[in-house]
């Protein structure tokens, strides 16, 4: 239960961190280490070099920008996000998600960036961030690029990130409607989770658009297109029947893995339960612009 030998570097700038990969391109970023060290100790991940990004300043900021975007630094721990005043004010559902991820040890050192970059399908934040339409800022040797969370996770434990690209910031528009999130878990990680984000019109009476993501069922969060389409232009009072009408078909279109978290029909059913509970919460919450 000890990792195989590796070299260790602790750069203090992003440029040095990216450069640390050198020509071999060998190495891995080390943030909180809650996934990485575990996997290295189990010897399912081998790396010759760890590049510790904890000394890079400015990677753990949370802010609301002038453009009304919320930015979360990739080095923010779950605990930090849970307690942050900006997040609590504008996206309380994300704050409570982070307050309930994993266990207290993981929350106090594990980061949102590490969570995304590991690409574990049974995770909470990716589903929520995809519903929030978040973009990820990746900085590598050949420059900086923006990737939508929806496009970031390719498959189980695999993302589009190049090994020497550092995830620096997560950006998403400040929500203009209720944000709801629910997960079901029996064991260490979520079996299913559902996030729903509504954008409301100026009068706060009509849903101008909706984003719904179901996580943990397939290799990455999946949109419920049918539900999103059905919600567009509805008043809050019309939501429940509209969702119920399209839900069976929408759920059937989901890719669902059978795994230790349950059989496909059960997990589809749970997605339905969570989505309807989210809808009820969003309806009950009311929204004032």
């Amino acid at each position, binding site marked *: *239960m*000890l990792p*195989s*030998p590796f070299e260790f570097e602790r750069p203090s700038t992003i440029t040095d961190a990216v450069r640390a990969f050198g020509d071999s391109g060998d190495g891995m970023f080390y943030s909180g280490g809650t996934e990485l060290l*575990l996997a290295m100790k*189990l*010897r399912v991940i081998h790396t010759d070099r760890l590049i510790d990004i904890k000394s890079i300043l400015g990677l753990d900021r949370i802010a609301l920008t002038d453009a009304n975007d919320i930015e979360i630094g990739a080095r923010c721990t779950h605990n930090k996000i849970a307690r942050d005043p900006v997040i609590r004010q504008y996206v309380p559902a994300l704050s409570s998600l982070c307050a309930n991820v994993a266990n207290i040890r993981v929350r106090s050192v594990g980061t949102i960036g590490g969570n995304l970059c590991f690409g574990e399908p049974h995770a909470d934040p990716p589903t929520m961030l995809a519903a929030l339409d978040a973009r990820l800022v990746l900085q590598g040797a050949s420059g900086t690029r923006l990737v939508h969370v929806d496009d970031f996770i390719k498959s189980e434990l695999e993302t589009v990130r190049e090994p020497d690209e550092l995830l620096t910031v997560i950006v998403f528009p400040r929500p203009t409607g209720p944000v709801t999130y629910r997960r*079901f878990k*029996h*064991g*260490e990680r979520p079996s299913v989770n559902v996030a729903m984000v509504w954008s409301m019109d100026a009068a706060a009476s009509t849903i101008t658009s909706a984003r719904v993501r179901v996580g943990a069922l397939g290799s990455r969060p999946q949109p419920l297109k049918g539900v999103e389409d059905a919600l567009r232009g509805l008043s809050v009072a019309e939501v429940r029947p509209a969702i119920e009408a399209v839900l069976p078909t929408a759920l059937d279109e989901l890719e669902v893995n059978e795994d*230790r978290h*349950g*059989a496909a029909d*059960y997990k589809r*059913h*749970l997605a339905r*339960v969570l989505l309807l509970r989210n809808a009820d919460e969003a309806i009950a919450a009311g929204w004032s612009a």
Partner: protein
Amino acid sequence: MSGIDNMGSVRPDLIEKVTGRAEYVTDLTVPGMLHGFVVRSPAVHARIVSIDSSVARSMDGVVDVLIGEDVASFGNWGVVLKDRPIIATDRVRYVGEPVAVVIAGTIEIAENAAELVDVEYEDLPRATTIQEALAEEAPLIHEHHENLEDFYFRGGARPTENSNIFHTYRSCVGDVDAAEAAAAFIHEDHFTFPAISHFAMEPHAVIADFRGDSLTVWAGAQTPSAVQKVLSRLFGLRLARVRVIVPFVGGGFGGKASVKIEPLVAAASWKVQRPVRVAQSIAESMLTCRRLGADITIRTAVDAEGRIIANSAKLLLDGGAYSDTGSAVATKSANRIMGPYVVPNVRLEACAVYTNTVPGAAFRSIGGPQAVWAKESHMDNVAAAIGMDPAEFRLLNLASRGERIRPDLRALDMDMSELMGRVTQSFASEVKASDRQERGLAVAATDPANTPISNAIVRLKIDGSILVSVSSIEVGQGAHATMGRIAAQTLKQPISAVTVLRTDTSVAPYDWGTGASRSTVVVGLSVESAALDAADQILEMVADVWELPRENLLFVEGGVSTGSEVLTFHQIFHRSLGVDSGEVIGRGAITPRSKKGALAESPLFWETSAGLAEIVVDEDTGEIHVPRYASAADVGRVINRVAAEGQDEGAAIMGLGHALYEVLEFEDGQPINATPIDYSIPRISDVPPVFDTILVENGDGPGPGGAKGMGEGAILPVAPAIANALFSTYGIRITDLPMTPEKVWRALQKRN
């Protein structure tokens, strides 16, 4: 707890633990110590074609690599059946079986080199479940069965030649067939119970130091005398030359009982003739042993009034690749499925079966959770089938105090109806958790194999301080503090005067071991008798030297009262011995002959419990919440209330674990969740917010002050109590554990 004044009453081991001073095996270093890392089989059942350890051996810092052929000549070991090689030799029988130990200067080097040991396997046909192992053409996991009679427990195993059945136990009373023919109603059920991991916070860790014809072992062993005996026989060493030292142990639950990795580590030390330490991870310990899974058919016949007239049960237990104490688990499961009921006609059969999975082992209330899960679920089914209230059905059939459940077992020494009443009262009296009536009840009576064989030494020193020496281990249950308290109370001295020595077989006298809820009673009695022996020697001196009649002499704090004055121990020793020094050594022994044979009959006491659960089910997801639980046990007398309640609560929450969360899963023999990440145990947030522990004290136990043993019983009723609440409120009957949300949801779907 207010201030320093009360520190004297705090268990000394707890102070050591919270200050970080307490030493566990992994805190120890022995001069010259090397580290071993175990290479394990990835194969379910395979022939070992070759082992190439040359590359590993050539690594810097690697001292040697132990493999099977090095130690094959020592032969097999076991505690009931001699079926286990020190390390796999020609064949592996489960995933996780040790095939090599890399021995190196550091643990890092050993683990890195372990990846370089190249083992070639050739798969053999496998039998990974009870059904596969019992099938007509099943491969034999062991070709021969070598039984060791009376080696660890009384008796031995009854294996069936040319089969995977390594033990069968049968018990018949009356005539079940005739009773069934006359019955008003007969009901049969089938239940299964999964393999469960002990999941002790401290995994198995052992240091062994082989020096010529002597061997010292530091191990978190629950039964040091069994370790000593097995090592002595295996390596041909005299018992007095095998020393087993047990520092603090971070959880055992049976997973460290009998003998586990000690022979392997001793062999590694033998090979290099230096001390070797092997400290497993939790994941490795999950591949070392586990509770036996079970497949149980149970049938009950009742008369027109609802009286049970016949009971039969067939229990098949999944013993894994090596038998360990699986035969005893099977026997106990048959005894424990009877429950606290009077039934005139009984037919029980239990078989323990080899499978190509992690070896089964003793686990808190051996065979009990499996049996009681089936029995108490079945009781509610029978009650429902005949239209009776389940509590009334139980009350009608309970054995009363003094009545025998079976002729060959001691008469029941408690009132189960009292325990049932107390848990029901607990729900009625406390602030209501809710108005719901979603409740289920279960009861259990078990016969611990408490083996009345123990010795203790109590030394009283000139300054009134007392040393207690026993072989009981301190595994968090507070045994050492209890022994100290018994010595202090018997000698009328303050608890602060007593020191209990750490377990060391070269100092402490023989005892059977720590398990089967026996220490407070059996070891406690030997401590009591050793203390009385020490007191006797003091009184003898006073009577002799002061020329006083003994009947006037009384022990008081600090010395002996003669009636007219108090003589300090100092005065007594000084004047009696002529010098200002000395001690008396009191010796206490408990054997089946002690107390005029009163301890000989089995069980020494009945370990009983009743549990009442209230549940709330999220019918959309199938998730069960337990907002409230009451647990009652008849413990005779409480010696340390905090420790006793802690044991009861801990056992109940362990029961909640296998009820709702836990299962060590195998897919065609491959363990698929044998890591602490993938295996779920209950957390503090899963503990019922309202939890009541009721300890009934009638001072009627065989132990000191009328104590009975405890600490295992409360694990038993939890799962069936929850299942019975599901049955009575939601109309679904779950027959296999754990009761996961998915299972509950499917049952609800089926009902609709």
